[in-house]
């Protein structure tokens, strides 16, 4: 499979990238790791006239300590997220989610910016940044704007990114010592999530506080599990409450069904994984949890 012909542009700086995008209009497509875009181009589901490769913009590749936040350049790969000592200590949810994306080769090329911009309804990092209330910096020649992860995803493969904008930076809160978990159900290790649950919280005395949960793979986009958050915040995480909350976690959610999992099965899986994720942050043992 070969993509249709296109012109290749490789800007050396973010400024150059944004002015290139302004000049080329919506016939241009940004490429980062190419792990999704190149597949689409080979299948000719995408046939951009110009490909603007961000891979030669070294200034977009950093993980920086900013005190109460950690700033991550859009070109940071999954492998780099997974290996980052700073993130492991101060925002462990992100490296945990990154470590179960695809396989080694995909993690060596795929980037955090590409993962979010692609807005895959089963994207693992989409759930992680949503649960983290991350902020995203979008840059164009018109200026820069910051959006919350909660405002970024609009639907299946759709986000608020305009064709002339580059997602340049992702800012996650520094939450050293917080509890977090990313649990993913997939048919095989390198597959997309049938269900992925990202959760983080603090334990304040005996009660759980600031719990945020995001779910991927079950609907047309990642979403926050508000009913779970409302039911658990300020309460002690104990088994009856967890089971009750998990059993209602999919109420009102339009759960998708496909060849990999029917809607009924996915609903069941999601409830089970919500329960396991809460147990994981509550350090409450339950039925044995396979590590997926």
């Amino acid at each position, binding site marked *: 499979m070969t993509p249709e012909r*296109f012109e290749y542009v490789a800007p050396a700086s973010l400024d150059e990238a944004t002015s290139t995008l302004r000049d080329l209009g919506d016939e241009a497509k940004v490429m980062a790791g*190419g*792990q999704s875009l190149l597949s689409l181009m080979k299948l000719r589901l995408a046939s951009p006239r110009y*490909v603007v490769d961000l891979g030669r913009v070294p200034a977009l590749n950093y993980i920086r300590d900013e005190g109460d936040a950690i700033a991550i350049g859009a070109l940071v790969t999954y492998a780099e997220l997974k290996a980052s000592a700073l993130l492991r200590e101060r925002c462990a949810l992100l490296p945990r989610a990154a470590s179960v994306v695809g*396989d*080694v*080769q*995909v993690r060596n*090329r795929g980037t955090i910016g590409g993962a979010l911009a692609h807005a895959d309804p089963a994207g693992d990092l989409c759930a992680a940044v949503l649960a983290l209330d991350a902020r995203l910096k979008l840059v164009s020649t018109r200026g820069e704007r910051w959006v919350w992860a909660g405002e970024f995803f609009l639907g299946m493969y759709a986000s608020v990114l305009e064709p002339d904008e580059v997602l340049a930076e992702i800012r996650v809160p520094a939450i050293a010592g917080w509890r977090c978990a990313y649990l993913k159900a997939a048919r095989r290790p*390198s597959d997309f999530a049938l269900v992925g649950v990202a959760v983080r919280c603090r334990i304040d005395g005996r009660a759980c506080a600031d719990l945020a949960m995001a779910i991927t793979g079950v609907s047309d986009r990642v979403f926050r599990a508000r009913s779970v958050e409302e039911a658990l915040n300020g309460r002690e995480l104990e088994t009856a409450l967890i089971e009750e909350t998990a059993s209602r976690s999919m109420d009102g959610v339009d759960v998708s069904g496909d060849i990999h999992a029917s809607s009924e099965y996915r609903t069941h899986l999601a409830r089970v994984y919500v329960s396991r994720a809460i147990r994981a942050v509550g350090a409450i043992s339950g039925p044995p949890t396979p590590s997926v």
Partner: protein
Amino acid sequence: MRIRVRLNGRTVEHDVEPRLLLVHFIRQVARLTGTHVGCDTGNCGACTVLVEGKAVKSCLMLAVQADGKDIVTIEGLANGGGLHPVQRAFIEKFGVQCGYCTPGMIMSACALLASIPSPSEFEVREALEGNLCMCTGYEQIVDAILHASTLDRGHGGPRRAPQAPHGRLGHGPGDPGRASGTTEAGHGR
């Protein structure tokens, strides 16, 4: 567009169409057909090569994206006539049946052993997540890689980045680990 890469230690320069995939550059332009195309969709790993020391699927990368980079394929492993220890281990432990997946398996194994010289079985299996084999059932492949990690590294062996036949692999001059040819974990970083 003109690109220039270090391919198994040799500089290769060529005009390519931007849409040319790296795997086709390797197979058709450089005529190294040891790198296989299995699925062409990014799932099977048969096309795995090392780019800057990291395992990547060459069917999911454009040749133009590799411009200026250092690439090692299965042909870059054997030193003169002698096989690389990972290759030897695949023979000794019968990690091969039809052989279609083997070049990709071996490149993934080399990347693993360069960063983790003595991996656990779990680490080996994890490193192979992106490499599918329809013949062996994986057991002999895992055995072969564990065996390779114990083999004599007398010849550019698994504890270092695979050494290309014609000198260094084109890393920057300020790379003492490479220049002296000593062990370097996570090469290419």
